[in-house]
């Protein structure tokens, strides 16, 4: 009997001992086989990821907002997906995804890559990531005005970053670009690393030009709010002999395959069936009035049928042609442009027109030619395609901005919206586009607009930030211009 008890006790003891010894290591299995640990990140994997994140949003849903608000397109009568955008009826609960993806997707990846590249002296990556970070940040500042910058991306260390004003962020970004340009960035990347640069394939001269052009764009954004600073900034670029982009900065990596399609195409055509976006009378009237050969590029026909902006509730009997309105011509393989050669030329033309730096006429012409060359077309001459070379800055500026506006679809439509907010061109029409006195190209107030005749100028902070960050500034109506916007526009 005694032996039996001893045996039992030993069994209990041995099993318990085995289990207890095992306990020390029990959580060794808690290492995810599904995801690499954070410390395995390198600029080589972060940078391309962040670039696609920027392209996916700026060239996707934000491009739809930009395209509707820049009046290239309007909502179709037979569907309803973008009615709230076209009616300027956006609230904090709409389109949280863009803010969230750029802030928690693209930007922290650029930031981590920047700190690693800096630490490891991978200066080409340092410059590439800095330029793309600045580009992405600028979009957010231009859409939301104040956003977190100095305290952003600190994770658990700061869960509620304070908001910095747009001007401070601009200055910070410009300084970051300057720091990156001041390094020994111009070294050849390995073939493998060059592949991770979807934009220039490791051509660092182009990255310098992109950096300079971005700086020029940012300084010119400040002409209303900080005219001296804008001018000084532009002048210093020219005096330092900065060279500007003469190629398109963008990603041309898309293919018609699962999860690899152009983001605008994936969104509107592949997923939503191309039933929403239709040609806006505002844009087509201008294209047709000028017999612009890009009409066929943008809409697949040289005589598109358009819907007047925001008139999506019109019945078929009232506006029978609306039902056969033309869709924008989108392709799964379209590139997403961040800053085109044409835009670079037009920015230089504006710098010349404003400050007498360089040759405005030549830059304008180069811009028009580049804009058409983008589609293998020969640029027309004369009319609106000719630089007015007026003594009046506004006349010149108007010609430049109209050409920029006409060059932005289909991938960086937001720039058209920002340019209008900054310069007032194209002008706001006093009549609706159904009116015989309507001037082609002038922006009309959406037929179903809910903002009492005032055009949208910004987005409101999304609920994703407002409900989690008590530092979020009070809500400002979407019709209030951002800090660099033209007052009373």
């Amino acid at each position, binding site marked *: *009997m005694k032996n*039996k*008890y001893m045996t039992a006790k030993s069994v*209990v003891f041995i099993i318990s001992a085995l*289990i207890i010894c095992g306990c020390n290591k*029990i*959580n060794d*299995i*808690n*290492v995810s086989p*599904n995801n*690499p*640990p*954070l410390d395995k*990140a390198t600029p080589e*994997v972060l940078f*391309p*990821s962040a670039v696609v*994140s920027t392209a*996916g949003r700026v060239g996707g*849903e934000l491009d739809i907002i930009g395209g509707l608000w820049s009046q290239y397109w309007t909502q179709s009568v037979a569907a309803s997906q973008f*009615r709230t955008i076209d009616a300027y*009826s956006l*609230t*904090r*609960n709409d*389109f949280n*995804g863009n803010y*969230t*993806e750029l*802030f*928690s*997707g693209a930007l922290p990846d650029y*930031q981590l890559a920047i700190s690693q590249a800096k630490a490891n002296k991978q200066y080409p990556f340092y410059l590439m990531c800095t330029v793309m970070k600045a580009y992405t940040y600028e979009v957010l500042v231009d859409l939301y005005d104040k956003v977190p910058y100095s305290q*952003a*991306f600190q*994770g*658990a260390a700061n*869960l509620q*970053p304070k908001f910095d004003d747009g001007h401070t962020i601009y200055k910070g970004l410009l300084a970051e670009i300057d720091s990156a340009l001041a390094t020994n960035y111009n070294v050849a990347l390995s073939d493998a690393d060059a592949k991770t640069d*979807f934009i220039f394939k490791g051509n660092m001269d182009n990255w310098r030009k992109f950096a300079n052009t971005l700086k020029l764009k940012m300084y010119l954004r400040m002409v209303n709010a900080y005219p001296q600073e804008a001018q000084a900034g532009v002048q210093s670029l020219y005096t330092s002999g900065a060279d500007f982009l003469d190629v398109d900065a963008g990603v041309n*990596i898309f293919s018609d395959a*699962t*999860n*690899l*399609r152009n983001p605008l195409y994936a969104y509107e*055509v*592949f*997923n*939503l069936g191309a*039933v929403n976006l239709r040609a806006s009378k505002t844009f087509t009237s201008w294209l047709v009035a000028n017999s612009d050969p890009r009409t066929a590029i943008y809409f697949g026909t040289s005589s598109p049928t358009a819907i007047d902006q925001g008139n999506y*509730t019109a*019945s*078929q009997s009232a506006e029978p042609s609306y039902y056969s309105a033309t869709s924008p011509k989108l392709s799964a393989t379209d590139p997403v442009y961040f800053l085109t050669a044409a835009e670079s030329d037009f920015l230089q033309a504006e710098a010349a027109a404003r400050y007498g730096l360089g040759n405005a006429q030549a830059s304008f012409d180069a811009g028009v030619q580049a804009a058409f060359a983008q589609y293998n077309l020969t640029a027309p001459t004369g009319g609106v395609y000719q630089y007015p070379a007026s003594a009046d800055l506004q006349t010149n500026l108007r010609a430049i901005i109209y050409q920029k506006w006409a060059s932005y679809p289909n991938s960086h439509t937001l720039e058209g919206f920002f340019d209008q907010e900054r310069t007032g061109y194209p002008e706001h029409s006093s009549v609706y586009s159904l009116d015989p006195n309507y001037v082609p190209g002038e922006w009309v107030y959406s037929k179903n607009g*809910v903002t*009492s005749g005032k055009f949208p100028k910004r987005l409101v902070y999304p609920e*994703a*930030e407002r409900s*989690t*960050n008590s530092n979020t500034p009070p809500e400002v109506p979407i019709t209030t211009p951002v800090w660099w916007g033209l007052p009373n526009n």
Partner: protein
Amino acid sequence: MLMLLLCIAQAYAQNRKVTGQVTGKDDGQPIPGVSVRVKGTSNGVQTGADGKYIISVPENGVLTFTFLGYAPQEAPANKPIINVILEFNSKQLGEVVVTGLGINKAKRTLGYAQTTVKSAEINLSSPINAMGGLQGKVAGVSISNVSGSPGGSTKVILRGYTSIGGSNQPLYVIDGVPLDNSTNGSDANFDMGNNANDIDPNMIDNISFLKGSAASAIYGSRGSNGVIVITTKKGKTGKPVIDFSTSASIATLGYLYEPQSEFGQGWDARFIPGENGNWGPKYDGVVRPWGAVVNNTQLIRPFSFIKDNVRDGYDNGLELNNNISVSGGTDASTYLISYGNIYSNGILPGDFDKFTRNNFSLRGTTKYKDFSADASLNYIDKNGNFLATGQAPTGISTSFYENMLQIPGNIPIKDLRNYKNLYFNVDDYYTPYAENPFYSLGETGSHSKSDRVYGNIKLDYKFTSWFTLQFQQSADVTNSADKIWYNTNTPTPGSWVGGGNTEGQTRKPDVGGVTEQNFENYEYDSKLQGLFNTKISSAFDFNGLLGVNYNDRGLRNAASSIEGLAIPGFYNLSNSVNPPTAAEAEAHQRLIGFYGQGTLGFKDYLYLTVTGRNDITSTLATGHNSYFYPAANLSYILSQSLDLKGSLLSYAKLRASYGETGSDTGPYSINNVLNSTNVGLGFGNLAFPFQGVPGFTIANTLFDKNLKPERVKDYEVGGEFRFFNDRLGFDLTYYQKTRQDQILSVPIAPSAGYTNKLVNFGAVRDRGVELAFSATPIKSGLVTWDMNYTFTHSQSVVTSLPVGLDKVILGGDGYGALFVAEKNKPLGLFEAPVAAYDPKGHIIVDSQGFPETAAANGIYGNFQHDFVMGWNNNIRVKDFTLGFTFEWDKGGKFYSGTADLAYFVGAAQGTTYNDRNPFIVPNSVQAVTDANGKVTGYTENTTPITEANTDDYYYFNSNKAQAWNYRILDRSFIKLREVSLSYTLPKTWLSAIGAQKASVSVYGRNLYTWLPAGNHYVDPEVSNYGTDLNSEFGEFRTAPPLRFYGASLKVTF
């Protein structure tokens, strides 16, 4: 101390040893704590938790068996094994139930509410899963079928929800070991069932519901949401017994939405033959052409509402439930072999919702001297065809239910069934805005197959009369695979759907696709425990256990899919125009628990039980992964203590308990990681690699090494009272359960670089009252009427949120409706846009006459019911028994995606407001603004919603301010859950076929549903958001529920 006890035990060694087991006659369950004595001596022992005893007896000794609540028995000790069956003399005192870790105890010793249901109740209406027949029958247990598809999931929640981000699922324990309850392959589109539904209900002996921590803490972390303890049948000593049961049911459509019948096809108040809306003119009965123009021909029919149109799109289903088992045994060993077969084909025309299941079970027990073993082995083969619900994957396919909802009331759905016919095919369907639902039925689908083996072996060694050592090892392994396919189609340009309709619209192509997924679930559970059972003195007795438990479980999943089919109708991963995408995921976790429990009884009327358990988990970091939690409960049998026998009060018991449970989190939740980049676009994705370049991004969830376990604190007081010889009784419980330090992924400011952070935070408190009232109004030789009424009120309130957050978004969809938790408010609020009001309370409308949307969302209520009632009756007249069960769930809200689509297409009854004539939004004003756009005042609104804008008025895109008034609906319902009529065949007939007993029944399940006036759309119990808290958000165009009628035959040979 242990050594001392061992020495004392040795002193008894004398004479000859007799062993055996004491079971109850009523249910065959072992009875613990039975006093076994040698007659005329002071030599006595008690049976253990397994009902077994071991005693030394002199030659020619006689054993007496006594247990409170049972008639005493005597047996001559003339063989080495003496098994005894005792019979009740008081049910309340004698009832034995299965408690923590599968251990039997007398129910009177429990200081908490525990409900046990028996096999007969479970299988009354031949449900194909264990919980299907218990709806409305148990207080504090909410059971619902979330989808109407055969083989779909059953949602079971014990008491209210307390976990915001984690699981609220109860732990299923079968014969003492945990059972995997995964829902492999299920998502918002597919409900492929939950694994707990695999158990063959015919093989269940009883189910106990342990609702509070005092009862469930011993199970460890997973017991924190309550435990469902299932005990299966086993063979009984005696000659072979064959049990055979068969049932056949007809499945029909349960609740179906009721469309308006006044306005027909069209839009903007005009008849348009290609429209999917009911926004056309009023029905006038005039014969008109409809549908596509094909070869210059067109169909004609009267422009009138077709009654039962949608119903005609469905067929009746058939469900068969067969089981045969053979069991028997000798004094030493028993066996049971069972085979169960389920065939269920739902109400969709064809085999697109077919489910079959085969259950093979083996169970055997044996004993040899002081050693006994109990083993079971089960194999389940399960096959199901499921149809997608919810919103179809955009760009890939469209959904049957969405397509059904979009058919105007004047188009005969019945005629559309042959989707290859002229006028109804891909090119010539009547509208470019939707597809023929029968195309979706025939050309999309899914198949799920699963093989599962589970079982356990339990070895007992009874060292002495008061100590048994028990080892139990279980395994539960499931391999399942599912395949989902969607065909491809492109409307021919120029055809009616390809742009030839009067509006010139073209339907986008369906590119189609195939997804293949494989899952492997495994769970191994080992348990070593010592059971103690002793009578300390004449007044005190003690039983207890000490144990250690090791649990290892995990999941492996691999999934591949293609988008776009090269050859239409060929569903294989090779058949793609695109490269396949593939993903894999694994999860593996371990837990070691040490536990102990002791019950001290005093004079058969006062019992104190104390429990403690310490878990060590693999999922938390060292320093936080070992945690202890205690529980205690007290039971006082008032009637026994005061000896109230003979008074009106036949039984009275008071009970009180307090318990805590610690709970860990899922694996891989403490270290920050990278993700292979997949950028969500809103619609569509960008996924790496691009051009052979990989991309990785910082994962959006910020993990935390300092996570600590969640803790549930739970107390409960209650009482059980019976009057008039048990003819009337009630059982009342008040409880409060608080889950603290919840591990939840909370949204954080995206500008911090992450979207979510895993945190421990505050608490959700669930308080409730449960009442069970039972009565036997009639009891005579001829007629017996038993009824049982249950009332449950529970409310879960969020008592704290992470610092800096005023709300946590739990989920939501519904185009902008959110499901949120806010501090000091009931859990699960519906938040959605609301109208803006002027200071005087008038709705502000915009220049178009549409209400303006307020800057911030408003609250539309929460999901929780005010109360849930069940009323269950059993009326026996001679050999006939009639049973019926009603359930009334009152109050609460839910979001309906069915209502949303019904409003969009003008099928909703609410859309006939004002006969669709122009109207001004009642009580509305327009803002007056100055030159700067500043609001200076308000004037009465005179801008009407025009007839052509009526549709926009009800749509969320154009009337965001009010749309959710029509989409967030009252959750109340009254259901006739079950009706059954059984006839027990007379013995005289049975002897002719050699049977011992037999009964035939006719029954119905989910027979009738009453919904409140505002809900013409959907049964509020259905959901395609899973079976946890998120499912309470509501539904998004899911399958209608089913109603069953059937008959069954049960024979025992």
